[in-house]
């Protein structure tokens, strides 16, 4: 990775020989795969052998000035401040300063000018949080406070800020309530009944079905939710997934109300990959996701973000790495929690995830946890680059580390 620095920065990281060999190897093997007939892809094409999706329809839509990867492709800024988390206590004032420094560090502009780069005062801004794993590893409320304060200072009315995630009860469990965030909106795209018998309305339809836009969807042809392993019947699947056809519908909140999105993912793993910026958006914006896990797990993190309703609205990504979790994710597992004291900023979520994946791999090796560094766990990021959605090539990523 290219790294930059100035007087307040710690020594910059570099792309290690090991990284270089691995990336070069992945490229070579992807090329070899053409001959071997295994999954690989050319620019703008789906990886061969994958299920047929409607990614081509997404790619036909004209781009806007806000389309991914945004104005700063491949640029990632990390702000580290040990004062942000001391003896398991989060310091809101320190986190607020980190947000200010991170935004300005990313754009090279002051806060007001940074705001104008992404928003205007008429925007309805969705703040996508990740409540899964609370209280151990969910998006910190203090971070949301700081981001919302920045928006409000620059003219966005509080009522035009919507804190959202897919499941309403997870938001509540993690502390994202209207009482806590007064004046703002807090919304889950759907509910799910824990008892399994109160999720249908009088007509037998899921009570959250109306929250999803039947005209805007991620389709995987022939892959429906009716035979997903581990679900005993359609009812249990529908309870959690709302629909069980071969489409995952986007929330109406995203398709109709939000004009911009800020993505506040958390810094954690999922198996040998990560569940940070792109997974937070990919699986948090649609319903009927369980059918996607097995065949298209990480591909979803690229292709859902290619949908114009995300691609053209997602203007800023901040990964909450004040605390990190290097194993046991995506759920909170205190055994693998550590104070990372960092926030990561990017307009390009794919470059951001590549940087964080590398860091996570290094952390796991540092503590002696098994780390499967197979290229498949970052293939979706290279796929995104082939679609022009972001930068995954570590030689092109500009990674700046700033330490308070």
């Amino acid at each position, binding site marked *: 990775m290219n790294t930059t620095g100035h007087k307040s920065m710690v020594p910059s990281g570099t792309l290690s020989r090991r990284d270089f060999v691995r990336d070069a190897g992945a490229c070579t093997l992807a090329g070899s795969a053409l001959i071997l007939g295994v999954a690989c892809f050319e620019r703008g094409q789906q990886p061969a052998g994958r299920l047929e999706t409607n990614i081509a329809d997404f790619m036909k839509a004209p781009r806007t000035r806000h389309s991914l990867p945004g104005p700063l492709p491949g640029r990632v800024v990390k702000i580290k401040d040990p004062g942000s988390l001391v003896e398991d206590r989060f310091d809101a004032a320190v986190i607020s300063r980190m947000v200010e420094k991170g935004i300005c560090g990313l754009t090279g502009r002051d806060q007001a000018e940074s705001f104008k780069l992404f928003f205007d005062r008429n925007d309805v801004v969705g703040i996508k949080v990740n409540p899964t794993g609370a209280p151990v590893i969910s998006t910190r409320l203090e971070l949301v406070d700081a981001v919302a304060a920045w928006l409000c200072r620059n003219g966005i009315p509080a009522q035009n800020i919507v804190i959202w995630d897919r499941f309403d009860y997870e938001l509540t469990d993690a502390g994202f309530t209207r009482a806590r965030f007064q004046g703002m909106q807090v919304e889950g795209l759907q509910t799910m009944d824990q008892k399994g018998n109160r999720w249908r309305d009088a007509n037998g339809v899921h009570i959250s079905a109306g929250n999803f836009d039947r005209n805007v969807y991620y389709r995987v042809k022939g892959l429906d939710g009716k035979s997903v392993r581990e679900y005993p019947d359609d009812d249990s699947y529908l309870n959690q997934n709302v629909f069980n056809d071969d489409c995952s519908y986007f929330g109406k909140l995203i398709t109709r109300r939000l004009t911009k999105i800020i993505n506040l993912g958390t810094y954690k793993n999922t198996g040998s990959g990560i569940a940070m910026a792109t997974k937070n958006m990919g699986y948090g914006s649609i319903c009927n996701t369980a059918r996607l896990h097995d065949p298209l797990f990480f591909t979803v993190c690229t292709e859902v973000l290619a949908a114009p309703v995300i691609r053209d609205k997602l203007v800023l990504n901040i990964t909450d790495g004040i605390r990190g979790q290097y194993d046991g994710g995506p759920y909170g*597992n205190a055994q693998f929690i550590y104070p990372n004291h960092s926030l990561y900023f990017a307009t390009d979520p794919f470059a951001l995830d590549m940087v964080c994946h590398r860091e996570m791999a290094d952390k796991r090796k540092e503590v002696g946890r098994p780390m499967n560094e197979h290229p498949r766990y970052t293939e979706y990021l290279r796929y995104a680059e082939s679609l022009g959605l972001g930068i995954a090539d570590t030689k092109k990523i500009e990674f700046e580390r700033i330490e308070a």
Partner: protein
Amino acid sequence: MKRLVIFWALAGAPLYGRAKSPGPELLPPNGFLQMWDRAAPARVFAASDLYGFIDGGAELYLEFGFEQLAVQRYGQRTRNAGGTGTQGQVQLEIYRMTDPTAATGIYLANCGKETPDPSFRERHTISSFQLRFKRDRYYVIANNLDGDKKCVPQMLEFGKYVASRLPPDAPVEALKMLPRANLVKDSLRLIRGPYALQAIYTLGEGDVLQLGRKVTAVAGSYETPGGRYTLILVDYPNAAAAGVAFDYLRRNLDSYLKVVDKSEKALVFRDYDGKYGRMSYAGARLSISVHLPQKPSIN
């Protein structure tokens, strides 16, 4: 997603050995330690429900062999003048797996570097947030939801209460397979399918070791002067099954692994990281070494 609510036992679940179906007797009652009350009714998850509630995380439990999850949240009585409300919160999760190997497998996958408390005799690890332990076919987590260090001794008491009501622990034969010399502490893992294997290495798609959630493999890392490598051993029911598994693995080897040498019962490959692997079988045992810094001999 895993909701922080409470689950409790469903009737009619299959029993294993001497183990009892999880019931109220495993859960500390109201007034536990004179300060903890149940915060809500307890509920349970059967295997068929777990996937829906641990979205993206249930697979490993199901792969090892999962039967029921019971979860109970407790609230601590306040000491204020009014005597109302609660302060600390502890959530108890009791996973009943299909057998002791399954419980050990899920424990090893989740325990990390163990930091035990000398007063608790079960195999466990404890931090200010969680106590995790296994006994017999049970895997138990006590979550200190606020992370308040003052609650750590009480978390231990929750653990001791549950442990005292579980059947005696049982040995896990698979753990005896690996040689002990130079074995890296905390690197032991059990494997019954692709989800557990992927944390260690990618050998191919799906259940490439043909474990079928029944056969248990064991993995561990070893320190050598040349570097660290990982050894995976599988004992199949018989030599024929091992041969079939070896053949399947050879034919379905991951496309990123380049075969550099092979014989009838062995194969050497080079991986995406420039390191080497070797797999072979003899009798009913399949042996796989990965992350080898130097190219090994085929023999």
